[in-house]
């Protein structure tokens, strides 16, 4: 069964590339460039995984995470991998990310779900 992944980033180009790169029959990628949209949508339609950019206008990943379902795993994709985070994240990826690493994580989740 395909897992639902929500990806939050303020760069639309990056959102587009992510979606084009990782969208497949196993992974349904929905991209958001607005944290509020992400939060509201995730309440209605819970994903299996969040990918969050850290430096967003007015928001950091931690701020957004606090509003999300704590049971849904979250990973960070950020330009600054040395940043200290309050919340727990299953992975932290630096930009530019390595596609295979992202894929591995998503596959792991998919496997565990099964």
């Amino acid at each position, binding site marked *: 069964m395909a897992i639902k992944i929500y990806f939050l980033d303020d760069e639309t*180009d990056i959102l587009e590339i992510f979606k084009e790169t990782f969208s497949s029959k196993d992974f349904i990628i929905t991209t958001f460039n607005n944290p509020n949209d992400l939060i509201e949508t995730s309440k209605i339609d819970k994903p299996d995984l969040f990918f969050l950019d850290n430096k967003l206008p007015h928001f950091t990943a931690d701020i957004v995470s606090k509003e999300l379902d704590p049971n849904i795993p979250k990973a960070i994709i950020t330009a600054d991998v040395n940043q200290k985070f309050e919340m727990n994240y299953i992975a932290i990826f630096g930009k530019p990310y390595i596609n295979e690493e992202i894929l591995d994580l998503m596959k792991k989740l998919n496997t565990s779900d099964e």
Partner: protein
Amino acid sequence: MNFKNYSFKEKINHIILEFDKIKNLNNSENIINIINNIKNMLIDIKNNEESHKKHNDFFNSNELWKRIFDNIPSMIGYWDYNQINKICNHSYSNYFGKSPANIIGHHMEEVLGKDLYLKNLPYIQKVLDGNTQSFEREIITPNGQSRYTLANYIPDFNNNKIEGFYVIVTDITDIKILENQNNKIQTSYRIIFENAPIGMTQLNSSYEFISANPKFCNLLEYSEDELKKKSIFEVTHPDDLEKTKDVTNKFIDKMSINNFIEKRCLTKSGKTIWAKIYTETFFDNNIKDYIFISTVEDVTNIKESQMEIEKIQKALFESQSLLKLTLDYLPGAVSSKNKEGKYNFINKKFKFDFNIPQGDITQKSDFDIFPKEVAEAFQNNDLTIWNTRSLLNFKRNIPNYKGNICVYDIYMFPVINTDYQIVSITTILYDITEKIELEKNLQLEKEKVNHNSRLASLGEMAAGIVHEINNPLTIIDGNIKMLEKLKDNPIQFSEKLKSMDKASERIIKIIRGLRKFSRSNYQNEYRQELFSEILNEVLIMIEEKAKQSLVQLKLDITPNIFIFCNVIEIEQVIVNLLNNAIDAIQNLNEKWIKINLFKNKEKVILQIIDSGNGISRENEEKIFQPFFTTKVIGEGTGLGLAIVKGILEQHKASIQLNHNFKNTCFEIFFPLNKKDKHGN
């Protein structure tokens, strides 16, 4: 008295007395003694017979008496009661031209002449009354000469009856002449005394005033009568009393030698005056005592001027000494040269710096002290000053006494006298070698600090910059990986390439800006820069951050404004301010930054206004202090505004908060580029 010295008559008398003694003696021995005495006396008379005889002859000789009578220069005569001459001497002929033969038996009027007789008649009448008369009379002699005489008429009494009178007339012409001369002298003296322009006094031998002329009286404010009750000591200043006594003691000791004293006198009102006094000593035969005649010159003004001059000379000497001391302890080497280029004066520093040996400097010139090229340069400077009278200031490398080349800051200027002539050239040399070294080091340190602060600012932006570069990198990387799949889809392929191109442009801009930003500028290049271009560069560095922070940038830039600056540093300043503004308004609802650039008559003004509410009063004074920050730990070093202020000060610019805006407004004022007098 010795018997030998008695006259003949006296001796005879003495013998008679001795005989008288015998009558009264009983003792034969005594009688014998007296007889012997008498014998000795008679022998004496016998032995001195010739001299007695001459004496007697003399007194018995009428001829001799007649000669004496006739040759006495005074007129001697006898007139009887009827004024008929009975006897007269030859002197009458000198006065009246008549011999005694023509006078004896004649009336006095005949002899004297009517005029003279009438003049003398009152005296004649009085002497015939029995009163001795003495009077002066001028007689004109037959040869027309005027003779002054003193006539004495002496009555001749015989049994209480006046039978006639003796006349003795003495020629006192010479005395009279002397008297007249004396009178003239006295009168002249009196005139001089009364009218002299200087004070004159006469003192008696007790140093009391006999007289004082009006000038002296005015000087001391006393009347002459008041002075006559005083001595010289009573009008002398107490401090000069001893001196006065010393001098007055010499008046008689060294009579007729000038005695001079300069001393203070006291006037009646108590004022002190200085007087120069010359005194001559005279012996007055009339009063048989000394008198001291003095001239008294008021030299108060001269003395006060002298004292003033002495004070001035003393002050001058003291100021000269002070000047010399000051010059010797000045940190600069000071010298003075005359028109020939020879030294008049050098101070201690000069001697030390250039190793001048002890001795006369006045024969030395620059060629004796400095190397040839330095001396020639100074010679040219001297010539410029002599010709133009200008002050010169320049720096020159000169070897000091150790042979080390030192940098001197040199001032040379002419010294001009009251006739506007140049009399000398003064040179002051300040050794600024160390100062220059220190300044160089300071500048280096400043550059290092600036560089470090730029790096610190850079560090502060690092997170943002990493983010700003990594995002485009992610786009490029992601797109590259998809290109393979899209090679059959030219449209999408082309779109991906465009997206990658755009992303790489972003990266290039950021790198270019960073590179320029981080470059150290030890050379400190200042150039004319177009301000709008500076702002463009800044915006490249800052626009991503602003965009990320959703801060709207609004620009109102007046074109064609130039400033003279180090472009890197000014960019650093503006970046710092914009960074701060973006950070300050992060959490506000309204987020914008306005950048205004304009100028007025004197200044170029850059305003950076953000949508914040202004800086609190508490923080306003502190914000330009190093390491002050309102950001949480880790977010900023706080170096920014202190460095901003320092850089602006180097540019002769200033920064302040403008409270006329309700928002936060930083205003920077740059000097408007004007050419200075050298065309710079």
